[in-house]
């Protein structure tokens, strides 16, 4: 076979594989949206769920999902950023950092149900946080940290060493170089990592079933005092998320329109992640522009 033929064959095969992937994704997305769209309405998005009757919504679950996502990100992002900066910018390549990296890799392949059970034993039972948003956020942090650290470290790696040398040669300290030169340049790449992990967190169910709980007590959306039990902001209340809701309806839902609610919830989940992605990308672009005037 000539190299030209080989090349054409390889290109053909790669196009085929890429096409297959796109097709599968589009089919899944299409199925979820087509079967869920009819259920979508303002009422569905805002009203609380009903256990036995039809016509329940997912308002509380939707809010819980976002609230948990934000809390989990607020906890895990600074830690992951610090760890990644330490690992890539400061630590020497020796057995300590090698051990840390191996630990991170192993942690990142931990099944989320194991994270959930650990969270149950440690946060819910041992630390007496109960089934609460806080327990869930901590469990999600454990679930999220390894991959986020890894992806931020990879983002720092994409910034060429000549940039670091440029900073140091101007008499900047290593810290100033990292915060003023490297991080601004790495924003788009870091953001991609954050978005990907946020999507994972938003859609996570197994780690939350035993930590944030499976019940969604009624909330009073007029009460924003986080110390009141019915306040949406109270971090100590149990909080079923959208993903957990889908799992629960499908395993033990007894309302007459369980299937429709499940389909609708799935569509909402997918759309919310999409919305989140677009918003994050838009904000990221503006941030990058402000930092770099690119």
């Amino acid at each position, binding site marked *: 076979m000539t190299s030209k033929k080989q090349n054409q064959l390889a290109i053909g095969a790669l196009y085929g594989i890429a096409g297959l992937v796109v097709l599968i994704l589009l089919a899944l997305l299409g199925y979820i949206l087509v079967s869920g769209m009819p259920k979508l309405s303002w009422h569905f998005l805002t009203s609380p769920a009903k256990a036995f009757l039809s016509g329940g919504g997912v308002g509380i679950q939707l809010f819980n999902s976002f609230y948990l996502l934000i809390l989990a990100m607020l906890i895990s992002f600074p830690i992951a950023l610090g760890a990644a900066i330490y690992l890539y910018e400061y630590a020497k390549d020796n057995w300590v950092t090698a051990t840390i990296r191996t630990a991170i890799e192993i942690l990142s392949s931990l099944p989320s149900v194991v994270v959930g059970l650990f969270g149950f034993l440690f946060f819910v039972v041992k630390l007496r946080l109960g089934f609460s948003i806080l327990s869930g956020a901590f469990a999600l942090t454990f679930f999220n940290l390894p991959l986020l650290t890894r992806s931020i470290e990879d983002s720092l790696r994409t910034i060429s060493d000549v*940039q670091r040398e*440029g900073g*140091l040669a101007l*008499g900047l300290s290593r810290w100033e170089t990292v915060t003023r030169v490297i991080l601004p340049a790495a924003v788009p790449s870091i953001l991609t990592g954050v978005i990907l992990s946020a999507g994972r967190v938003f859609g996570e169910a197994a780690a939350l079933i035993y930590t944030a709980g499976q019940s969604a007590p009624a909330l009073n959306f007029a009460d924003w005092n986080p110390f009141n039990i019915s306040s949406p902001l109270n971090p100590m209340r149990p909080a079923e998320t959208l993903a957990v809701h889908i799992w629960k309806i499908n395993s033990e839902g007894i309302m007459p329109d369980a299937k429709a609610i499940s389909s609708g919830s799935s569509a909402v989940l997918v759309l919310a992640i999409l919305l989140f992605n677009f918003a994050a990308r838009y904000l990221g672009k503006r941030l990058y522009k402000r930092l770099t005037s690119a």
Partner: protein
Amino acid sequence: MFVNNDVRKSEEMLERHVTQPSEAGHPIILSTEDLHVYYGKKEALFEGDLQFASNQITALIGPSGSGKSTFLRSLNRMNDRIATVTGRIMYRGVDINQPAVDVYEMRRRVGMVFQRPNPFAKSIYDNIAFALRLRGVTGKHELDEIVETSLKQAALWDQVKDDLNKSALALSGGQAQRLCIARAIAVKPDILLLDEPASALDPVSTGQLEDTLLELKENYTIIIVTHNMQQAARISEYTAFFNQGRVLEYDTTSQIFTNPQVQVTSDYVSGNFG
């Protein structure tokens, strides 16, 4: 072992020829004494006491791997985390490797421009201004002025004066390298170290860069590593020839290129090896 070493050195000393600029009465701003640089166990630079005359251009030439970049990077401690440096580097009477020396302040006085242009992912203006802001220069007027003079000194002002807020990453290679020079001189160093600054540039940009360096000589001491023999001959007063980690010959540039005393130097500058 120790004895053998000495014998070898004294033999090779015969074919060294070093004339320090102080002998010609030039004021000396920087000098190295008994400098050794190790990467791990490997010694990359083991001989070369050099003095650098202030407000002159000194070229460091030699084949790849001869230790000239290693030498240059030691002069503002860019090798700190990479290599072990022993011996003394005296800058205005201070050994810069002493623990008491503020390495950041030292690097501000001994600036560096690298082989690959490395503008930051910031606007042209901020590339120059942000290091100054970190040092407490915050007045808009003052910053504007420093940015303008630095860019003018680097011969870039006329091309970018209307685009100061555009990203520096959009500049061409030659412009980017001159921005890096402007950035380096904006913090008002004494000495400018340049590590093959023209190797990634086309001939026209290289010519402009050389003109810039010749003008900068008025205010700065310049030490430049170059692979381009003509470049060394065109712009420098002094030339040091490095080979296998040693300085084999150091003299005025005209001497090195017209009347080299060491056979290896002669072979190298006439293009017979390297």
